[in-house]
C-alpha cells in the first residue's frame, strides 16, 4: 500500500500552509480555524445558553414551589408569560420544553462534547489541530445559527415549542393542540436540523482526528480516557442523529404539507376534525429515541472520561482498570444503540419488544457498574489532594452512582410502569445527563482553565461554588425521585388539582428553595470565571502535575500546540506514583530511558 504513505505525508503536513502566517483578529478569534479557539467559543456559547436554561429552570421551580403566589415583577419582565403575576400554562410548557432542549443540546452538547472535545482531543493526542479545521469552524457557526434560532422561537407567534423536548406528535404536529405548536415548533425543528448538521460536522472531525492525527507512539491504549470517551461519543452521535433528522423532516412535512407520517386517522382537536390519515405517533417515538437514548450517552461518556482524567491527577495514582474501563465504554456505546425502547414501555408497544428492551437495558448495568467501580477504586489508596476539580470529580462519581441506581428502576419494565412519566424520571435524568455532566463540566473547567487562559481560578470561591452546587443539586433531584414514587407526574403546571399529591407540596417548596440556592450559587462561578480571566494567579504549564500531553506545552498553548517539531509519545496517560526528576509522575513525552514504562 504505497499509496498510503503518500497520504500519510499529506496528512501530517497538509495543513502547514495555514499555520505559517499569523492571522488577523477576525481569523484568530471569530472565524478561527484553531481548535482551541473554537473549543473556547463553544464553551462560552454553551455557558451563555446555560444561563438561559437556568433562568427557565428558575421560572419552573418558582411555579412548582409556590403555585399560589403572585409575581408582579415577573409580569413586567415577561408580559405575555405572566398574566397579572401568574404564569400562564402555555408559557410554563414552553419554558419546560425550552429548558430541556437548551440544556441537553445547547449547553451539555456544546460545552461538554463540542467545547471540551474540540479543545482537548487534539491536545491530548498530540495533534496540531483537528483533521479538518475549516469544517470545525463551519460546525461552530452552523451551531450558533441553530442556538440563535432556538432562542428566537420565544418571540414567534404562539411562543416557543411547548410539546416537551421529546416533541411527541400529535401535540407537536397539530397547530391547534397547544399554542407553542403554531410556529414555535417549526422553529424548534429547523433549529434542531441546524444543530444536527453542526454536531455531525464536529463528530466527523473528532472521529477522523482520533483515527489519523495521533502523535507517534500515541497508540489507542495510551490515549487518556477522555479521548476514548469523545471518540466513542462522536461515533454514537454520527450513528444516532440521522434518525432524528429524518423524523424532523417528516414532522415538518406533517405540519406544513398535510402529510400523515405521525398523525393517525380521525383526530378531533379543539372541536375540529383533522384531515390527516394513517400515520402513527409511535413511529416518531421510535425514531426520536433511537437518537435520544444514544444522545444521553453522547453526553455522559465525555463527562465520565473527564472525571477519569481528573481523578488520577489528584490521587497521584493511575486510574483503576484502564483497559477494562475502555472496554466498558465501548460496550456501553454499542449497547446504547439497541435499548431505546425503554422510554416507551407503557406506550402500547409490543410486549415482546418490551421484554427485550428491558433485559437489554439492564445488560448495560454490567459495563456501567464496572466503570463506576473502576472510578471509585481509582481513589483507593491514593494520596488525595482535594482541590476544586477533584471535588467536582467526586461529585460526578456520586451522582453517577445514584443516577445509575435509579436507572435500575426505569430500565425494568415492571417498575417503570408505575414510575414512567413521573418525577422519578425527572430526578433520574437530571442526576445523569444533568448532574454528572454538570459536575464534569465544572470539574473540567476548573481543571483546564489554567491551560485555556493561562491563569488559575480562585480556589476559595471554587470551593464555595462546589458546596453551593453539589449539595442543593443532590437534594433537589434525590427528592424528585421520591416525588415520583409518590406518583407525581412530570410536566405538570401545578400539583394543586389532586388529593393524592397533597403531601408533595411541601416537598416541592423545599426543592424549589434548594433550586434557588443552586442557581444563585452559580454566580460565584461566573464571578470566578471572569475575575480569574484578568486577575487570577498566573498558571504554570503543568499546575496540577498531570501527565497527559496538553500539560507538556505552554499555558495557553501556542497556535500549533506543540511547536514545529513532531512529538513522540513514550508511555500511557497515567504514569503517576513513579519516581522521576520532576516529582511523582512522568508525562507521556518522558522517554523510556528516564523513567521506566510501567503500564
Amino acid at each position, binding site marked *: 500500500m504505497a499509496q498510503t504513505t503518500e497520504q500519510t505525508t499529506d496528512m501530517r503536513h497538509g495543513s502547514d500552509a495555514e499555520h505559517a502566517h499569523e492571522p488577523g483578529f477576525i481569523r484568530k478569534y471569530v472565524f478561527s480555524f484553531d481548535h482551541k479557539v473554537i473549543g473556547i467559543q463553544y464553551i462560552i456559547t454553551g455557558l451563555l445558553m446555560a444561563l438561559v436554561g437556568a433562568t427557565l429552570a428558575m421560572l419552573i421551580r418558582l411555579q412548582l414551589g409556590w403555585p399560589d403566589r403572585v409575581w408582579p415583577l415577573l409580569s413586567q419582565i415577561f408580559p405575555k408569560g405572566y398574566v397579572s403575576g401568574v404564569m400562564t*400554562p402555555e408559557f410554563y410548557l414552553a419554558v419546560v420544553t425550552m429548558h430541556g432542549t437548551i440544556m441537553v443540546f445547547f449547553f451539555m452538547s456544546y460545552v461538554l462534547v463540542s467545547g471540551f472535545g474540540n479543545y482537548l482531543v487534539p491536545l491530548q493526542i498530540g495533534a496540531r489541530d483537528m483533521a479538518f479545521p475549516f469544517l470545525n469552524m463551519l460546525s461552530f457557526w452552523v451551531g450558533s445559527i441553530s442556538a440563535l434560532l432556538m432562542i428566537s422561537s420565544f418571540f414567534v407567534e404562539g411562543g416557543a415549542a411547548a410539546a416537551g423536548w421529546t416533541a*411527541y406528535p*400529535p*401535540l407537536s404536529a397539530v397547530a391547534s*393542540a397547544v399554542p407553542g405548536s403554531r410556529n414555535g415548533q417549526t422553529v424548534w425543528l429547523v433549529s434542531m436540523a441546524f444543530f444536527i448538521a453542526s454536531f455531525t460536522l464536529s463528530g466527523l472531525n473528532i472521529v477522523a482526528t482520533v483515527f489519523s492525527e495521533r502523535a507517534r507512539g500515541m497508540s489507542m491504549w495510551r490515549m487518556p480516557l477522555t479521548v476514548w470517551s469523545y471518540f466513542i461519543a462522536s461515533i454514537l452521535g454520527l450513528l444516532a442523529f440521522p434518525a432524528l433528522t429524518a423524523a424532523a423532516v417528516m414532522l415538518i412535512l406533517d405540519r406544513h404539507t398535510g402529510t400523515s407520517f405521525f398523525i*393517525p*386517522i*380521525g*383526530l*378531533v382537536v*379543539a372541536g375540529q*376534525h383533522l384531515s390527516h390519515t394513517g*400515520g402513527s*405517533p*409511535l413511529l416518531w417515538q421510535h425514531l426520536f429515541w433511537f437518537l435520544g437514548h444514544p444522545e444521553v450517552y453522547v453526553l455522559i461518556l465525555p463527562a465520565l472520561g473527564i472525571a477519569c482524567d481528573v481523578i488520577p491527577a489528584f490521587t497521584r495514582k*493511575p486510574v*483503576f*482498570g484502564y483497559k*477494562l474501563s475502555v472496554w466498558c465504554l465501548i460496550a456501553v456505546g454499542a449497547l446504547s444503540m439497541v435499548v431505546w425502547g425503554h422510554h416507551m414501555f*407503557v406506550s*402500547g408497544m409490543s*410486549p415482546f419488544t418490551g421484554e427485550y428492551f*428491558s*433485559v437489554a437495558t*439492564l445488560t448495560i448495568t*454490567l459495563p456501567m*457498574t*464496572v466503570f463506576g467501580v*473502576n472510578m471509585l477504586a481509582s481513589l483507593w*489508596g491514593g*494520596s*488525595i*489532594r*482535594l482541590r476544586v476539580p477533584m471535588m467536582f470529580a467526586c461529585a460526578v462519581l456520586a451522582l453517577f*452512582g*445514584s443516577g445509575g*441506581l*435509579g436507572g*435500575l*428502576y426505569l430500565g*425494568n*419494565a*415492571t417498575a417503570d*410502569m*408505575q414510575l414512567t*412519566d413521573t418525577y422519578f424520571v425527572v430526578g433520574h435524568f437530571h442526576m445523569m445527563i444533568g448532574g454528572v455532566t454538570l459536575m464534569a463540566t465544572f470539574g473540567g473547567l476548573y481543571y483546564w482553565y489554567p491551560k485555556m487562559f493561562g491563569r488559575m481560578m480562585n480556589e476559595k470561591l471554587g*470551593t464555595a461554588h462546589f458546596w453551593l452546587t453539589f*449539595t442543593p443539586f443532590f437534594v433537589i433531584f*434525590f427528592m424528585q425521585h421520591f416525588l415520583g*414514587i*409518590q*406518583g407525581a*407526574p412530570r*410536566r*405538570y403546571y*401545578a400539583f394543586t388539582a*389532586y388529593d*393524592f399529591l397533597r403531601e408533595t407540596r411541601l416537598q416541592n417548596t423545599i426543592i424549589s428553595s434548594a433550586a434557588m440556592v443552586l442557581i444563585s450559587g452559580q454566580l460565584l462561578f461566573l464571578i470566578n470565571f471572569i475575575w480569574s480571566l484578568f486577575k487570577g494567579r498566573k498558571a504554570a504549564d503543568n499546575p496540577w502535575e498531570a501527565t497527559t500531553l496538553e500539560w507538556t506545552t505552554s499555558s495557553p498553548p501556542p497556535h500549533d500546540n506543540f511547536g514545529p517539531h513532531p512529538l513522540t509519545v513514550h508511555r500511557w496517560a497515567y504514569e503517576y506514583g513513579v519516581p522521576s526528576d520532576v516529582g511523582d509522575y512522568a508525562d507521556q513525552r518522558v522517554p523510556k530511558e528516564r523513567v521506566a514504562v*510501567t*503500564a
Partner: protein
Amino acid sequence: MAKQTSVIHASIVAALFAVLGIGGVVYGSRVALPGLASRHGAGIDAMLDYLLITTGVLFAVGYCALAYFIWTGARRGRIGQRLASRRTELWVSGTIGIAVALVAEGGVLAIGMPVWSEYFDATPPADAVTVEVLAQQFLWNVRYAGPDGQFGRTSSDRIDDVSNPMGMDRTDPAGRDDIITQNAITVPSGRAVRLRLRSRDMIHSFFLPHFRVKQDIVPGMTPEVIFFPTREGSFEMACTELCGLAHYRMRGFFDVVSPEAYEKWLTDQSTPPPARR
C-alpha cells in the same frame, strides 16, 4: 498548616458524602407509594420494594466508600500502592459489576417479568367489567355497554364536542342503552376490570396511581388494560403524558363500590339520559 486545613476540609467533604448516603436512605425509607388497591399492583410493589432495598444498600455503601476513600486518602502523604495488579483489578470490578448486574437482571427476571406478562398477556376473565375510555383534551369520556352488554358503534366522523363527544352512531341499536359519563369510572369490587382505552386527539396516559396502572393512549391504537381492584373506595385518575395546557388537571375518579351499589348505580345511570357530570 496547609496540610492541616486540607485534612479538615477533606473530612468535611467526606462527611458530606456519608451524610448524603445515609440520609438519603433514611429519607427514602420514609416515603411511601400511594396505598395499593389492585392485585397485580402487589407484584409491582414487590419489584419496587426489592429495588428500594437493594439499591438503598448499594447507595449507602457506595457513598460511604467514597467518603472513606476521601477521608483516608487526604491523610495519606504518599500513595498506598501504585497499581493494583491486573488480576486484582479484574477481580474487584468484575465481581462487583457482576453482582450488581445479577441484582438488577435477577430482580427483573424473577420478580418483574411475571408481573409484566400477567399485566400484558392476561386474557380477560369472563365476568370482567368492560369499560371504554375515550380521552380528549382534557377529560375522560367513559362508556359502559349498558344492559345489553354491547357497545354501540362509534366513529370519529360523528364526534361533536357538544352533542356527541364520543362519536356514537345513534342509529345503532346496540348503542341505545350505552351509558356515558365523564371523568368518572365506577366498577364493582370483586370483579376484574377491562378498560378499552382510546384517544381522539393527543397522546394521553391513563394513570391510576393506587392501582399501579399506567397506559399511554396513543391515538390510532386501542390498548386494553386488565386489572383486579382489591379494595373499595374512590381513587383519583390522572393523565401522565403531556397533552396540552390543562394536562395538569385532567383529573377523574375511579370508584370501586360494592356489587350492590354498582347495580344500583347502573340502574340510576340508565334511566335518565346521559348527562354531563
